[in-house]
């Protein structure tokens, strides 16, 4: 069977009942999706399946023949961060980083579906994602900022890859 992973067609040889999370990490060496609880309760393994966020630990890979799977690796690169990733950097929304891939993937889907900067709506959309550092406030702030794109410049120049230029006042 085949899936399209981050835009590239990949053949899968794992048995069909293997959780997608294990296929990604063990067969395809794509490790941004994290094995947290492996019971659907923490959100760290979340990936996009045909654009919708889904728990890879609860998804039997056999149900995905022909599907498009997007992981954090498919959203941006170190040189060219996505809007959500830049907002996470700017708002210090990662502490240990374990939940971050799932948070960024879910936040991306939320914004792609037209999500606003309403913090209650963001909390509801991200309600299945646990941060063991309890850094929720900065994560929600980052997603709200990405929704309005108001508090920072979304471009990072190649000369200054680690500097995010803040243009909005606070």
């Amino acid at each position: 069977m085949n899936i399209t992973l981050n835009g590239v067609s990949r053949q899968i040889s794992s048995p069909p009942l293997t959780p997608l999370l294990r296929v990604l990490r063990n067969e395809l060496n794509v490790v941004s999706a994290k094995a947290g609880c492996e019971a659907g309760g923490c959100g760290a393994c979340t990936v996009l399946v045909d654009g919708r966020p889904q728990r890879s630990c609860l998804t039997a890979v056999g149900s995905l023949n022909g599907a498009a799977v997007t992981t954090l690796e498919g959203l941006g690169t170190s040189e060219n961060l996505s809007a959500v990733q830049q907002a996470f950097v700017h708002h210090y929304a990662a502490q240990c980083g374990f939940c971050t891939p799932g948070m960024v993937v879910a936040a991306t889907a939320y914004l792609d579906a037209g999500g606003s900067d309403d913090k209650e709506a963001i909390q509801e959309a991200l309600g299945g994602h646990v941060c063991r550092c309890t850094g929720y406030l900065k994560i929600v702030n980052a997603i709200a900022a990405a929704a309005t794109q108001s508090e920072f410049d979304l471009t990072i120049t190649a000369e200054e890859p680690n500097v995010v230029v803040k243009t909005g006042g606070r």
Partner: protein
Amino acid sequence: MSIDVLIPESVDAAAEAYGDGRDVTVVGGGTIVVQLMTQGWLRPTRALMLSKAGLSYVRKSGSAVTVGAMTPVTDVADLFAPLGPCAANVGDNEIRAQATVGGNLCAPTPPEHPSGDLQGPLLALDASVRSTGAGGESTETVEEFLTHRDARLVLDLSFEEPVAGAFAALDRPHAHHPTALAVSAVKAGDGSIRLAATGAGPTAIRLSSAEAAADDPEAAGQAALADADLQDDALASAWYRERMLPLLVQRVLNEIKEV
């Protein structure tokens, strides 16, 4: 050991592949089955994956609603009470989009606590369950179906929009766990009231004694205790449930009274 995995592409093919259901593990959305496999509780020899079987649909005709077994829980979250609000209370955003109505109805009772939140509203709505298995296709009530749900393949569920409905549940401390206790109420066209609870027994149960006393919500709440089989488990103690069940019954009865 190799596992025989079947991925049927029509309802008929799914029914044929299921056969009499012996030794067949049905994989719907995967939210229950895949984690049981990961944890080693379940080692299927034959698996039937329903993702392409064409069982995901919500059909409305007047006040009649039919919901396919593979319909995501999120697709019934906008329906009338008690089913809609109950579905909206299941798990979280992503779990609701992946978990299925049929899978939730068939949720096993794990050793730790009851699950299958939708059983209560479907029981209160007096839904009929169309399923296949040994002896072929059959349609029966939720009560009948729940007694042998591990030996049938659900195809779809049908029910009528009630005159009034209400749903009340204990708040969940964290996503994904089933609610510790919930009560569903439905008022039919003839004024009769049906009440059901989840978390008050190994599966959802009908609260017949409370229905008989429905004119007086407070008395009905107390009467509900006679219908329940309250247990201590990982979600709540029987002591706590005994105090909360009458309150939830009162709340749903007061809500449908106002309609």
